[in-house]
């Protein structure tokens, strides 16, 4: 029997994960769990897309949330103001994020290191200022309120919580699978080359700027997808989605979950969410608690959760195509 190709294995894992997620509400029909998963879908997409840049590409973006915010706003606005169907709104959000990422990325990826980071931050905050100022369109600092219409499409009614749950899970699992396949493709390895030694990659014929731009746009699109899920969850869009705190949270998620393993950011997102939800129940000083935990991870462990597990596993002598390393 032929061994399964990697992408087939990854797809099977995705299907399995999706089935588990879909079965979960049947086992535990609590509203809290459903909400948790939906939020995790949004943040998982944001964090994993950021890690394509940070972990795989060596490009530390401080402003990634701008695409999360754009995705949410464009999606919500198309439904609210243009009264289009959900698929069209979704497509618009994706296209808008792609275009925005292409334009901003073309400028940013020319720079390296901390200057890249600062420029992405500046663009993100610029976008945030635009959102706050353009009150007529975006509702200003109140955000888009009034809910978003959810016209039924293809028999799916997103106003119903089960449909909404399934939709968000499919988006998240689909998005993560797509990102996984991208990172395991030839492009993904060219990206790793750029991360490890950009100079050498150029001396091997790689067009560094172009590959970086592709990565930036792809990351922006998937972050936008996360924004769409978030928009559905809150029934609108808020300026905070494009604020530095959202980018910062995404960075913590990937650091805490591990940047060297594909699902690290997702794990980090889950852990951070659990932490936030639990701590806020016991104390109003959740910043203090989170700060201490972050110090523990950064000064104590100095690596994310999945990175620790990766080190503990003995490396096996498998053929390159089957290796799980990043």
């Amino acid at each position: 029997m032929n061994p399964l190709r990697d992408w087939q294995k990854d797809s099977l894992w995705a299907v399995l994960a999706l089935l588990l997620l879909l079965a979960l509400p049947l086992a535990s029909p609590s509203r809290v769990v459903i909400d948790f998963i939906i939020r995790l879908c949004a943040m998982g997409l944001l964090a994993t897309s950021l890690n394509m840049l940070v972990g795989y590409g060596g490009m530390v973006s401080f402003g990634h949330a701008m695409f999360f915010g754009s995705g949410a706003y464009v999606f919500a606005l198309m439904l609210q103001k243009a009264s289009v169907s959900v698929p069209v709104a979704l497509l618009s959000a994706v296209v808008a994020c792609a275009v925005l990422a292409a334009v901003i990325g073309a400028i940013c990826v020319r720079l390296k290191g901390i200057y890249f980071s600062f420029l992405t931050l500046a663009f993100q905050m610029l976008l945030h200022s635009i959102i706050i100022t353009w009150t007529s369109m975006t509702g200003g600092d109140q955000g888009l309120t009034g809910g978003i219409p959810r016209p039924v499409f293809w028999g799916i009614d997103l106003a119903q919580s089960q449909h909404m749950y399934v939709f968000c899970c499919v988006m998240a699992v689909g998005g993560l699978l797509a990102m996984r396949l991208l990172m395991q493709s030839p492009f993904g390895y060219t990206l790793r080359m750029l991360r490890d030694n950009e100079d050498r990659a150029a001396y091997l014929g790689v067009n560094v700027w172009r590959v970086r731009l592709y990565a930036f746009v792809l990351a922006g699109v998937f972050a936008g997808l996360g924004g769409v899920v978030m928009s559905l969850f809150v029934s609108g869009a808020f300026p905070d989605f494009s604020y530095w705190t959202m980018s910062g949270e995404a960075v913590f998620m990937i650091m805490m979950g591990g940047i060297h393993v594909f699902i690290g950011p997702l794990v980090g997102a889950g852990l951070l969410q659990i932490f936030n939800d639990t701590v806020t129940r016991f104390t109003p000083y959740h910043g203090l608690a989170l700060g201490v935990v972050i110090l523990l991870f950064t000064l104590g462990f100095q690596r994310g959760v999945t990175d620790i597990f990766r080190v503990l596993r003995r490396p096996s002598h498998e053929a390159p195509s089957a290796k799980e390393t990043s």
Partner: protein
Amino acid sequence: MELTALLECLGSVSCIVTQSSTGLIIGALLFLVAAGLTLIFGVLGVINFAHGSFYMLGAYVALTAYRVTDSYALAALAAGLGVGAFAWVFERFFMRRVYQSDVLLQLLVCYAFILILDDVVKIVWGAEFQSMGMPKSFQMPPLFIGGGVVPVFYVYLMLAAGLIALLLWFTLTRTRMGKIIRAAAQNPAMTSALGLNTRLIYALVFSFGGLLAGLAGGLAAPVRSMSPGMGFSILIESFIVTVIGGMGSVSGALLGALLIGMIRSFGSIGFPLFVEGLMFLSMVLILVFKPSGIMGKAQS
């Protein structure tokens, strides 16, 4: 956009004077904070993301010191020295551990401190907005220069900041300590090889940077209200200033701070909602056209 209002102001001497004085003190305070940030980056090579929290701490320390001593001068001094001491401890026990690490790790350590300090301030001083109020010594009618209103306190602030700037310039260029610091910024390995204690230099520069930020917080206390989380906007603004001026350049920080001060001041007339946007736009423009900043060396 209120372009007509802006143009009117630019045509009126009194308005120019009023707005310029506002711009100058915003710039003066920003300079103090940004100078610390840029020095720390120049000498240690790290970006102190917790710098805004130093400013915040300075404001609150000054508040308490003022309530206790009733002296504004002592309050500002306490703010500077107290935060300087805190910065020493922060550098010694936390930042020092991550000098060799990824910038992400450094960012996270600083962010952890921002979170912790914000809550500590909340616990000790409360979450509501507080204000020192104008000290009695400055409660006098404002000056009228060219028809424009200039509070006496502003003049004082400008003088204080100007004096500190001069002292800074003098120390860095004319004293032996200053030369050592600049040497360490250019070539840490060599400086260490020459037998100079780079660890001590780093600790001194870091705590001095903290001192400046804390001092700024204390000096600003009479005219700014304070709340936990106030550090953030100052941090962002001082970043913008440092980037515009050139990371590591104190003169750049001065230019950048004055520029941002004026943009804020005049910008709030012409683009009241978009003032922040203007500042970020400036940052974008500098990073696109001259990433090393106004006073920075051009990159190859």
